[in-house]
């Protein structure tokens, strides 16, 4: 722990007018790109990095952190308003957020998302600030075998979301896993299923598939729907007063799910390889097993929104635990921050706290500031978007589709990715029509590559003998938990339906 004077100096550096300006700018930009389907905070950061060459290191990094944090809430906005998540980790927000918006309470839904997002984020930032070094050490102890067990555990929790047909859910999961095997195989690096397209060497692009299945498919549906029912506003904007506010009692009523979401997000964020989308769904799935407090889940429950948003936002702060603690990025966002560090001549590593203590505490200051700004800017931006949404569907959806085109083109570097996005959209439409859960497909696809790699690593480490798991107590207990939760969730699920 550095001296108090260094810590104070670091925080002092953060709270300057210039820094505040760039944080606000970053948060506003992040909420904007997060809200536009197809363009996410990761791409915005990648685009912004070259522009930060000229800035002071702390200002540059604060700006990037602002973008990242703004994006956490931004993704929830279109998920709630038009059922097309702006970022994949907001997919679970749409399950309850959109129905609530349909009931004429879009502002309320967005506010709940904002409060839960900022709460989850702040909790995980505080954990990062106080416990980064010891937690990073603990996270290091999670080897391939433990990660594999953790993935199985995550799957078992998320299986609670499979829906009404177990077989269809399993088929969706297997198909997602199969799609994840496209590209170089993790153990030998030989290409599979690339059908002559070298763009598929690295696998089907996550961005193409996620944007296609989650956003474009819904846009297609809505365009088709608008044709049949005639143009109408995307979301009814009725009611004021209580319908536009989240009361303290409502927020407090969600404290349980928010806290659980923050905990899930923080733990999964500290351990590389699972990601915020899975964290959001785990939190949602476990919240759904609790009491629903009035509105049933799936029909506009505030608790559903709160659970998701607190979990996916909590991942962000915790992602920096391995980065700042030991110099290893836990996510793409963190990897981008590393490259920003390096451009400014700062080498992340185990000595970062010793050599750059003042900068790190400046960063912490900026993160807390960004959370506060997220809250304030968010109030403005949700009003802005609820104004934009008054435009007729005939404009919103074609324009949203153009944004998906542009976003996917930019992040995959070619039209191939855009074509893949359309294929994914059609697949998603067909799956939904036939009653296969798209969400399960996506999660299996997201986790698939890491799953195969961890499996391969674990088999080498365990000498391909499952009995050797006994030497990995953490993995063993996770597997037991997975079995217990599968049984428990299965029974509870059967009981309530």
């Amino acid at each position: 722990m550095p001296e108090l004077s260094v810590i104070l100096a670091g925080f002092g550096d953060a709270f300057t007018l210039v820094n505040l300006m760039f944080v606000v700018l970053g948060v506003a930009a992040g909420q904007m790109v997060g809200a536009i389907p197809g363009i996410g905070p990761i791409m915005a950061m990648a685009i912004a990095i070259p522009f930060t060459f000229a800035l002071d290191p702390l200002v540059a990094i604060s700006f990037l952190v602002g973008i990242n944090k703004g994006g956490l809430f931004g993704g929830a906005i279109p998920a709630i308003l038009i059922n097309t998540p702006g970022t994949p980790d907001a997919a679970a927000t749409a399950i309850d957020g959109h129905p609530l918006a349909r009931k004429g309470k879009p502002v309320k839904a967005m506010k709940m998302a904002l409060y839960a997002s900022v709460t989850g984020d702040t909790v995980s930032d505080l954990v990062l600030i106080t416990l980064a070094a010891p937690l990073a050490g603990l996270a290091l102890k999670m080897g391939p075998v433990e990660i594999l067990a953790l993935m199985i555990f995550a799957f078992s929790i998320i299986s609670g979301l499979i829906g009404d047909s177990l077989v269809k859910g399993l088929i969706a999961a297997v198909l997602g896993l199969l799609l994840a095997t496209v590209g170089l195989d993790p153990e030998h690096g030989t290409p599979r299923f690339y059908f002559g397209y070298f763009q598929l060497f690295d696998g089907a692009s996550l961005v193409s598939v996620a944007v296609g299945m989650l956003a474009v498919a819904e846009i297609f549906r809505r365009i088709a729907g608008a044709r049949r029912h005639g143009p109408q506003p995307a979301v009814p904007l009725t009611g004021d007063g209580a319908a536009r506010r989240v009361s303290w009692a409502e927020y407090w009523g969600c404290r349980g799910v928010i806290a659980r979401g923050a905990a899930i997000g923080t733990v999964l964020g500290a351990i590389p390889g699972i990601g915020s989308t899975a964290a959001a769904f785990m939190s949602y799935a476990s919240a759904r097993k609790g009491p629903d407090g009035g509105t049933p889940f799936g029909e506009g429950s505030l608790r559903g929104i709160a659970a998701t948003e607190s979990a996916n936002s909590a991942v962000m702060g915790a992602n920096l635990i391995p980065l700042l603690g030991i110099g290893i990025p836990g996510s793409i966002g963190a990897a981008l921050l590393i490259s920003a560090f390096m451009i400014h001549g700062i080498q992340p590593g185990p000595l970062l706290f010793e050599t750059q203590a003042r900068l790190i505490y400046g960063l912490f200051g900026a993160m807390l500031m960004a959370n506060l700004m997220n809250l304030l800017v968010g109030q403005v931006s949700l009003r802005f978007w609820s104004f934009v949404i008054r435009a007729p569907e005939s404009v919103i959806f074609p324009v949203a589709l153009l944004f998906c085109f542009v976003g996917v083109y930019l992040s995959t570097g070619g039209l191939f990715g855009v074509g893949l996005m359309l294929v994914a959209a059609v697949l998603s439409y067909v799956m939904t029509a036939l009653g296969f859960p798209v969400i399960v497909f996506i999660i299996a696809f997201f986790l698939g590559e890491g799953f195969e790699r961890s499996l391969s690593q674990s088999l080498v480490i365990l000498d391909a003998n499952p009995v050797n798991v006994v030497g990995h107590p953490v993995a063993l207990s996770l597997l037991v938990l997975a079995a217990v939760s599968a049984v428990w969730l299965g029974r509870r699920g059967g009981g309530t339906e």
Partner: protein
Amino acid sequence: MKIRTILAAAALAVAGAGSAMAEWAPSGPIKLWIGFGAGGETDTLGRLIAQKMGESTGWDFVVENKPGGGGIAMFTQLQAVPADGMTLGMGVTMPVLVNLTIRPDEIPFNLDSFDYLHTVALAQLAIIAPADAPFDDLAGLVEYSKEKGGALVAFDAKPQELLMNFVNGQSEAGLKPVSTKSSAEALQQVLGGHVDAAFNAGAHIPQLEAGKVKMIASANAVRHSYAPDTATVQEQGFDIYVDPYFYIAAPAGLPAEAKTALAEAIGQALMAEDTKTAIMNAFHTEPSDKGPDETKKMLEDGLVNVGMLFGK
């Protein structure tokens, strides 16, 4: 250096503009394709070089990302565009050479499909182990592995696995390769004690300085500038090395003036102070100053070496 002087003289004589590039000028913005996604080290470096080239020549550069297959997707598209110097590509040797070696029929190009302009940097590849490992060099690792019945070694690219196979073949060490996604993941497994050793290209240096890991060998043909006392794999008795170079190429058939002008622009951009710093930060090495002919030779030698790695 000599070529540069002659050109400068020629340029002065012809145009008097004082620029070595006066013999060739682009007809619009030059595209620099990066064989990797946005935001990575290669991308950052490519953008910096493009910016520097723009400053020193006054030409417009546009950087585009064409990720896929470690650059294969980008080079596949590059060989199909006109050879007018308006489109360049930046990639890394290893994935290209490996694919040309093991599946030449499926790759729609070969080494002759491109004109080579310049190298950018050589990635320094090290073999590392936890600081408290009971061995300090390759021989020690081999011994340890025999004792233990197979030491776990993390790697993140095919040639590294082949290097291990080579060591295994020569010494019967029985090293067990563990495939990881990146240098960072391999490093994490070393630090967490999940593997006994790992290949690493740069991420390990701060850990080395902090005393958390130790370096067993350099996997390149030469020792590393930051660790001059650590011998190479070759020096330690295994006649094999892995030299991943970052380089810039253009479609084959480039007009000679364009080739010279572009190669020179790249060379100048690389020698700028902030480019050097960025290369130092990203790859922990000096910029590599090989011109067109040397770069071509480097690739041809590299193909032979990779062939050896595969035992072909």
